[in-house]
């Protein structure tokens, strides 16, 4: 989160560049771009103070389409570049755009370390459960048995649960949204920005060329109500047509209950973003929607907490050191033991 200053009123158009957008027609990245462009004028940060850093992948083309400062870097390293940038320039609003391969495979290491250090920046992980740019290999979030060009007999890998991973790395803000729900996505982008500390926002993104429809059950009108659980702070976990169902905690186990069958909202799990224990259970609600008796997939802010940001403490240490011992280059070069030759 950067300081709010009075800037001229901008609109989404001000964030559009003159570069032709090169994603495949129908790609979920278009919607995400549109939502980011809509949100940016509303966050109160001057355009020149916004920096978007990406790695490599279809998703990582993002900075070229945003009229802010931006760097399209190398595969997997956007998180590390952004960490250095934020350490050097704490006042900037830094956004990392990364893919499931970029951020969780080749760059997985930097992602977890960024989260534990809690730099105050926003990580947008475009999860399409596939390697788009390299034309359709399975990714670390692809489901088991996935048949792709590199796994003609089905993949053997067990996938990451990105939010559980983020929470395991002690992220201070963990959220999920989807390309096909513009309002929700805008809201989550705003929340990511508002959070002071590293925000990890996973965005389900359809790759209509190599993995079309992976998230269909969550995004299509016909199934969405049954399959998606929108999290709202202080509210019971409700879902289903007309919110007729809810989630109840039975000990540590979440259970679906039907409000038309004797349960009331009072029986339900009340969402509390600040509760790390509940968040641990929430991120684990990650069932395959094809399995019998599965739970709906949660979307929204799973967890948020306050923790000191790396760059902030770094600045404090420097200020304290300067106050204690002013910089004196000659004194440094001279040291304590000097002799003179005449």
């Amino acid at each position, binding site marked *: 989160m950067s300081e709010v200053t009075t800037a001229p009123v901008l609109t989404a158009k001000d964030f559009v*560049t003159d*570069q032709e957008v090169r994603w495949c027609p129908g790609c979920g990245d278009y919607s995400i771009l549109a939502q980011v462009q809509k949100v940016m004028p509303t966050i109160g940060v*001057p*355009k*020149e*103070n916004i*920096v978007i*850093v990406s790695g*490599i992948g279809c998703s990582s083309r993002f*900075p*070229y389409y*945003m*009229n*802010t*400062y*931006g*760097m*399209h*870097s*190398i595969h997997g*390293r956007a998180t*590390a*570049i*952004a*960490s*250095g*940038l*934020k*350490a*050097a*320039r704490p*006042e*900037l609003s830094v956004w990392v755009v990364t893919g499931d391969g970029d951020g969780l495979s080749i760059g997985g*290491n*930097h992602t977890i*370390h960024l989260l534990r250090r809690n730099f105050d920046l926003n990580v947008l992980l475009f999860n399409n459960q596939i390697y788009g740019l390299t034309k359709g290999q399975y990714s670390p979030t692809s489901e088991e048995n996935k048949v792709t060009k590199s796994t003609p007999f089905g993949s053997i890998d067990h996938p990451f649960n990105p939010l559980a991973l983020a929470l395991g790395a002690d992220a201070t803000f963990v959220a999920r949204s989807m390309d096909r729900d513009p309002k929700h996505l805008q809201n989550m982008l705003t929340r990511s920005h508002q959070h002071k500390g590293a925000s990890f926002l996973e965005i389900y993104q359809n790759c209509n060329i190599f993995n079309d429809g992976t998230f269909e059950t969550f995004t299509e009108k016909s199934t969405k109500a049954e399959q998606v659980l929108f999290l709202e702070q202080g509210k019971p976990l409700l879902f289903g047509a007309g919110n007729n169902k809810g989630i109840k905690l039975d000990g540590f186990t979440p259970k679906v209950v039907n409000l038309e069958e004797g349960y009331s909202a009072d029986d339900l799990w009340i969402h509390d973003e600040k509760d790390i224990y509940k968040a641990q259970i929430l991120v684990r609600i990650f069932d395959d929607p094809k399995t019998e008796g599965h739970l709906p997939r949660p979307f929204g802010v799973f967890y948020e907490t306050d923790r000191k940001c790396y760059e902030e403490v*770094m600045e404090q*240490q*420097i200020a*304290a*050191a*300067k106050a*204690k*011992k*002013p*910089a004196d*280059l*000659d004194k*440094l*070069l*001279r*040291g304590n*033991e*000097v*002799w*003179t*030759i*005449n």
Partner: protein
Amino acid sequence: MMRKEVVLSDVVIKFAGDSGDGMQLTGSQFTNSTALLGIDLATFPDFPAEIRAPQGTIPGVSGYQLRFSSNPIFTPGDLCDVLVAMNAAALKTNLSQLKKGGKIIANSDGFDAKNLRLANYSEAVNPLEDGSLDNYELIKMDVTKMTREALKDVALGMKEKDRAKNMFVLGFLYFMYNRSLDNSIEFLKVKFGKKDEILNSNIKALQAGYNYGDTTETFTTTYSVASAKMEPGEYRSIMGNQSIAFGLIAASQKSGLQLFLGSYPITPATDILHDLAKYKNFGIKTFQAEDEIAAITSAIGASYGGSMGVTTTSGPGMALKSEAMGLAVMLEIPLLIINIQRGGPSTGLPTKTEQSDLMQAYYGRNGECPMPIISASTPSDCFNAVYEAFKISVQHMTPVIFLSDGYIANGAEPWRFPKSEDLSSIEVKVKTSLEDGEEKLLPYKRDEKMVRSWIIPGTEGLEHRIGGLEKENLTGNISYNTDNHQLMVKIRQAKVDRIAEYIPLQTLDSGPIKGDLLVLGWGSTYGSIKSAVADLQSQGKSVAHAHLRHLRPFPKNLGEILKNYDTVLVPEINNGQLIRIIRDVYFVDAKGYNKIMGIPMTKTELVEEFGKYL
């Protein structure tokens, strides 16, 4: 008692013991006391590969070689005059480096049956007793027993008391070389300030060692070395890595650029991180990254943000950073990559020195990816060389590779430190707005140096995007155009080549401008080459020495210099790397001399080698 004082001009002492014996500290204390007397010196610490190899074994031996002289010297010496051996393994490892007739100061307690066995001496044979050292002057003393005796009133456990053994030895050497204890006592006070008993035991042991020499009638001779005739001025002692840290701080201060160091610990580069981490009062930001790649990419992020990004590492880390170096070449932003070379390949010889990463620096990246390369030749030279590397990086908007090595990193020498006002200025140009008549930002527009502008986030109206994909000339937009790619490859090369217009011409370190032999060196071979060449010159031989700081681009006049000698010889601690580049660039039939043993070249071997061409 009558005691005579002998004045010597040149002494080499090797302190050797188990890595737990504190020989590095003993050596560096003796070094400091030597330096303060204005005696010229050079050191060579020789660390074991393992941090804690089993006590008493040969892999556990740690050494510190110090040479001091009343004449200017440039190497820590080929052979030693004095060998301090704290145990049998230390003697076994170092005896071959001792001059015939040299002194051995042996801690007899370190030669018991167990130590002899650990050092692979056959059980019954104690070299201190069997006459095998008759060709040397052997001084046996039971350091352990005497230290314990001296500390009998100190309330510490036996183990702690034994830790002060090295101070006893130091005290004895101070006696031998007529030194005062004051400086070391001051040092101990600072080091152990709050730990009274430990401070006390160290000081007592130091004094006991001195008194042992002073009161025992056996030692009838003491030695002294006069101060050297060095250039007048104020001096201090400096080690290579420390010198790099200071150079970076100085350049940061002079340029007004915040210094950001992204680093991942690796021998022998880590001390730069340690050093810079101390100087937060200079606004320096150090970041111990999760790996080598994050170390360099975080530095790239910082440079992109308008700081001077630096990363420090050794060969294996260079390998990991190479993709990111390519990114920095494409982004055309400042960045300094410091490689303290060690023995390779792979993990190789972490604690030993080598110059085998020059090809890696030149060519070790994908694509046509030229970067300037600068090297340092001595510990104090690191300061100026890194200062220059910083400057080139900022003023030419390019990542720069800086090469040092393990030998320079850990070596110490006297340094006539500069005054900050005498350091050259480092002008930094940052673009803050469009100029008159400039309609649209062209991020890859270049000036007369072929350098693009540094435009940092936060600058209103100059928002733009950069990245690792090939960029269109001027606009910096992504371009797959075939002609454009060829143009950009040529531009990036020409930009680096053009730096030759802005760096000093190559000079000769010594020797005639035309002659039989030119010895062309780079890096840490400086001292050995210089000394060997001086020897031959004093015999009237026609030999000159040139030592390169700028390895890419080469100084403009280097080709001319090479033509003036019948033979060009390139000694390197590698299998022949600079020589290949020199042959390639200048078509000269240069000869090589290559020693790849993890240790520096000696003057003696070089005199012999150079002699073959004279």
